[in-house]
C-alpha cells in the first residue's frame, strides 16, 4: 500500500541512501512504498536490506509491506547533544515490529511521549528528505 509522504524542507538529520541497496530502499520509501527483503528461495523476511538472505544465502528481493506495526520497545530521549536532535528533545525513539515480521527503528511523532506504550499499534508514513530519499516514520494508529 502507498504510504502518506510528507516533504521535509531543509532536511538536517543524517541522510541515508549511501550504498546501492540503501539507495534503492530509500528511493522506494520516497515513492511511498515501505519494503522488506524477501527471499524467493526460503521465504525468509529481513530488514535492513543486505542483498543476501541471512538464512540461506540466496538473493532476496524487495517486497512492499503494509506499514502497520507494533511497538516492541521505545524510549523518550531527553538528552542528545548532537544537532539537530539537540533541539528536538524530548522525542520518542522506538523499535517497531512490522506485521510482516522484521523490526525497524523509527520515531513515533504527532503525539505526546506519554501516549506511547510497548505493544501500541503504529502506522508508517514517510518523511521525504529529497526526491530520492524517503525516511519511514511512525504515528500511533488511532
Amino acid at each position: 500500500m502507498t504510504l502518506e509522504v510528507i516533504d521535509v524542507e531543509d532536511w538536517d538529520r543524517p541522510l541515508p541512501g549511501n550504498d546501492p541497496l540503501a539507495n534503492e530502499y530509500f528511493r522506494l520509501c520516497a515513492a511511498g512504498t515501505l519494503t522488506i527483503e524477501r527471499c524467493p528461495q526460503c521465504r525468509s523476511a529481513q530488514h535492513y536490506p543486505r542483498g543476501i538472505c541471512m538464512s540461506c544465502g540466496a538473493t532476496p528481493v524487495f517486497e512492499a509491506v503494509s506499514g502497520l506495526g507494533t511497538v516492541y520497545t521505545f524510549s523518550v530521549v531527553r538528552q542528545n547533544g548532537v544537532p539537530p536532535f539537540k533541539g528536538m528533545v524530548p522525542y520518542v525513539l522506538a523499535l517497531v515490529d512490522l506485521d510482516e515480521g522484521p523490526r525497524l527503528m523509527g520515531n513515533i511523532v504527532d503525539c505526546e511521549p506519554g501516549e506511547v506504550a510497548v505493544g501500541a499499534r503504529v502506522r508508517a508514513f514517510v518523511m521525504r528528505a529529497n526526491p530520492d530519499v524517503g525516511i519511514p516514520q511512525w504515528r500511533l494508529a488511532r
Partner: protein
Amino acid sequence: MAREDRTPVICGIGLSDYPKAPHLDARGHQAQALRRALADSGVRKQDIDGLAVAEAWIPGVPGSDLPETAEFLGIDARWLDGTYTGGSAYEFQLQHAEAAIREGLAHTIVLVYGSDLLTRLGRSLGTAYGRPPIGAQQYEAPYGNPTVAAYAMAAQRHMYQYGTTAEQLAQIAVGVREYAALNPNAMYRDPITVDDVLGSRMVADPLHLLDCCAITDGGGAVIVTTEERARDLRQPPVYILGTAARQTHWSVSQAPDLTTTAGALAGPDAFARAGLAPKDVDMVMLYDSFTITCLLLLESLGFCAPGEGGAFVEAGNLRKGGALPMNTDGGGLSSCHPGLRGIFLLIEATRQLRGAAGDAQVPGCEVALAAGSGGWLSTIGVSILGRSAR
C-alpha cells in the same frame, strides 16, 4: 606433561592514572599501564611476544590501532590480535590469548588499553556522539539514537515483560557506589540512595543520569603467560578457567531479544569449559555501562532466572557482604569507564583472586567471573578466572 606446561595464567596487571588524567593521551595510558603491569609481574618487556589491542573506534580519537601500538610500545610480537567488539573486546581477546598460550603460538601476551576519552571529548559518549549514516547506521542514524537510548529501550522492554522497576535498577547503582567509596581513585565516591537515582534527571526513559556510567580517562594492561613461567614471577598466578564469546547482533535494531543477551549462549560455553556452574562463582565483574546492562547479564548468565533479576538485586546479593558481590572497584557506574571497560573487569577480578583488593576484598574469593558487553548489548565475552587450577 607438555600440556600442563602450557596452562595459561594471568601474571600481571596494571592500571594507568584515572579517572581524570589530562597529562596523558591514549598512548600515554597504554605505556603507563604496560609499565605498571611489567613492574607488578616481574615480566621483562623483551619477553613479551604477543600483543592484543582493541582498535580505535571513535572518529577523531587516534592512538589505538594495533600495528602502530606495537611499534610505539616497542613490542616485537609473533602474535597479534586487534579484535574489536566494543566494551567486550578484552574478554574476546583473553579467549584468543588463552588459546594462543595453550597452542604455543606465543609465550607471554599483553592485552593493552588506553583512552583519554574524558580529556579529549568530555562526557559525550552516551548522549552526544552521533554515528554517520553509512552501512547499517543508515537505518538508525536518521532517528537520533544516542548510545543511552538503546539501553533505555532494553530497560523499557524488560519492565514491560517482567515488571522490573526503576527502584530495582537504581539499587544496582547504589550498590556499586558503595564499592566506589572504598576506591580512592573512583570518579564518584559519595554514597547515593535509591531516591538519589530516581531523583536524578531522566536522560532517556526509563534511565536516569545515575543509571548511566561515568565517562573517564584510563587504561589497563593484563599479562598472560604459562603457569610454568609464572612460577618465576612476582605474583600468584590467576588461572583462566573458562572463556567464551558470542554475538547476537551489532546494531540495536537488529537485536533478536532486548530482554536477554548473548551471555545466555556464551555463559554455558564458559561454564562448561571451566567445569563450573553459576553457584560456584564468588564475585562478578559485570559490564555496567548502564544499570540495565548488569541486570541483563545477571539473568542471561544464569545467576538468576529470566525476569528475576530485579528481585535478585533487591535481595542485596550484589552488595558488599552479599552472596555475589559485583563490581568491587566501583564499576563503570561510579569509578572508571573510558569507552571500553572490558580490561578493567579482568584487572579487578585478578586483584580479588590474588586476595589483594583491600577493603573491597571478597572473603575467600576462589572463582570470579568477568562479563563484557559490547556495542548495544551485542557482543558478550565471558571470562571465568580462578585462584586455583581446576
